[in-house]
């Protein structure tokens, strides 16, 4: 019954597509950099980036980067940002390239950027790779500490020709942080549960800039995890009994009074902090490694350590002495949590 099978039949099935495909196959990764000379820098993920001497059109792929660009006074040169960039409100009016996690590469190209800013905190590595293959300069920030975030702001300022403004912005922010230390240095850390997401309950790991921000606000996360955004059980929270629950206003907007809301929920209402009404709600800035983070840190510090902000000059002097010790402690912490990726 078997029909003899002509050999030539086995070829057309494949060959036809083959010709068409192979021409497409050769196209990857040969996009040579034919751009004007600039400076070669290493970004925060250790990649070499050729940044044009004069950056004219910037696209940001995360809200914190957009905020930084505005803080640097570069809004004129911001060609586009993402759908979720809302700080400052003017950022909403810029052309959008999609979401940070899945931006449209063509939409980015269409804005003809000469400098794209990405971050490890919400962008995907694949997006950065794809843009680099197109010969677009992508600088990726990798925020793991508040101080690192400030360095990142001045570095981005340098690269975009706003070095002076960047230095000024960073100096102001550092001064505010220092003022905060002066007040909080010898106060005990408040143990908090930072809620990134409620259901499922997601909190922060030690190596995140949020955990670091908590330390600057005189607090410490009760969860010690090497994962950046660990999912934890309420039972674990119950066992550790945080002194304060820290929520961001972002995901509770619709719910009204947050602490009252938690008091009605089983699991949450049994927590001592909730019973006592120790629920701190901070601005969305705390989720973003950008200048607004310092606002959120101050806000949180005021809630957690109200006494420290009562006018009392004697205490201030005493604390100044401990400031150096605190800085040493922060430096040690940083060494223990290297921002490796």
């Amino acid at each position, binding site marked *: *019954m*078997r*029909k003899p*099978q*002509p050999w*030539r*039949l*086995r070829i*057309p*099935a*494949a060959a*036809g*597509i*083959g010709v*068409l*495909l*192979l021409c*497409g*196959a*050769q*196209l*990857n*990764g040969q*996009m040579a950099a*034919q751009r004007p000379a600039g400076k070669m820098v290493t970004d925060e993920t250790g990649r070499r980036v050729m940044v044009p001497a004069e950056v004219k059109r910037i696209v940001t792929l995360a809200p914190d980067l957009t905020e930084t660009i505005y803080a640097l006074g570069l809004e004129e040169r911001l060609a586009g940002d993402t*759908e979720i960039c809302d700080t400052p409100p003017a950022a909403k009016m810029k052309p*959008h*390239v*999609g*979401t940070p*996690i*899945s*931006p*449209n*590469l*063509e*939409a980015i*190209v*269409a804005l*003809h950027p000469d400098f794209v800013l990405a971050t*490890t*905190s*919400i*962008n*995907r*590595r*694949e*997006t950065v*790779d*794809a843009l680099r*293959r*197109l*010969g*677009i300069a992508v600088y990726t920030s990798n925020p793991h500490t508040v101080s690192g975030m400030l360095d990142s702001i001045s570095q981005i300022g340098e690269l975009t020709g706003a070095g002076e403004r960047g230095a000024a912005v960073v100096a102001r922010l550092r001064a505010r942080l220092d003022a905060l230390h002066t007040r909080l240095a010898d106060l005990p850390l408040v143990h908090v549960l930072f809620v990134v997401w409620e259901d499922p309950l997601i909190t922060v790991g030690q190596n995140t800039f949020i955990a670091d921000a908590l330390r600057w606000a005189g607090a410490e996360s009760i969860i010690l995890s090497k*994962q*950046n*955004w660990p999912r934890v059980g309420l039972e674990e929270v119950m066992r550790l009994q945080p002194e304060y629950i820290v929520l961001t206003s972002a995901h509770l907007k619709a719910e009204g009074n947050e602490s009252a809301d938690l008091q009605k929920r089983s699991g949450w209402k049994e927590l001592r902090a909730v019973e006592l009404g120790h629920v701190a709600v901070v601005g969305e800035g705390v989720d973003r490694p950008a200048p607004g983070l310092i606002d959120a840190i101050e806000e949180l510090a005021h809630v957690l350590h109200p006494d420290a902000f009562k006018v009392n000059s004697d205490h201030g002097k005493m604390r100044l002495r401990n400031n150096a010790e605190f800085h040493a402690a922060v430096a040690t912490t940083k060494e223990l949590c290297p921002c490796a*990726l």
Partner: protein
Amino acid sequence: MRPLTPRRIALICGLLLAVLFGVVVIALRMGAYPISLLDIVMTLFREATGRRDDIPLEFWQVVFGLRLPRIALGIMVGAALATAGAGFQALLRNPLAEPYVLGVSSGAALGAMLSLMLAPHIAGVIQVGAFVGAAATTATVYFLGRRGGQLDSATLLLAGIISASFLSAAIMFLGTTMNARDQRGTAFWLMGDLASPPSFAPGWLFFVLLVTIGSIYTTSSDLNLILTGEQEARHLGVNVNRVKLVVYIAASLLTGLAVSVGGAIGYVGLLVPHAMRMLFGTDYRLLIPTSAIGGAIIIVVADTLARTVVAPTELPVGAMTALAGAPVFIYLMRRRVR
């Protein structure tokens, strides 16, 4: 039914290739970056004649940097998955068999992830890992799906579903050891994502693809006989075990290849071979090449939709194929029951 002549095979394949070409042209035209057909043709022409310097940089970036690699990747993944589906359907003698449903895609994904973790810097290691994962899962599902020495259709599908959920759990477990950034990338890749072409030389992958599809094709007349009954095929002189081994390795290789570059895109291996059977009949000599080309068409279409319907954001292409494929699966399952 007309006899299957070489002429007819060539004619039908030619027709499908023409459709594929049309789809590729449309896909090249669609996208967030506005570029006219004329500009695309000019860009292609200038590149072909070696006058790259005349091409505006952005046209080059969009056409050669973004759209063509993505289309090429879609063609590769679609052809591989559809052919693998047709192969599994013959190997397991089950019309519902498909790499995704059988858990073979999940096995390939786990293999790829493991190999990437163990040896991250070796080119092609993902492909090897994905192949090993796919082959191991296929073997496992095959043996779990047997009942009293016979392959049982329902048991086989259950074995596939259970393997898939077990493997997904293992993938999730592995995911917790990754940093947040890689987790995000992995989540996209698992849903099936063609936006990021592989770093490993695509030319090689195409070569492997064509050789593997070709090797399944060489068994196609034997597969026709095996499908009428293994005993009968043996009596007619078919080396059933050899044919099965070839199809088993080839289908695993195709799944591994597709998953390693495009992630776990589901239901293509189901959708396409059945559409081709409805259109052109069940003869495997025609089914293999038409499935390969049809799979390429489907994925290019699905991916073009995935990157345009909710622009400027993109959907994973796996979401598009699952939307179309899952109802077809249910339809086929109901029809069999009756």
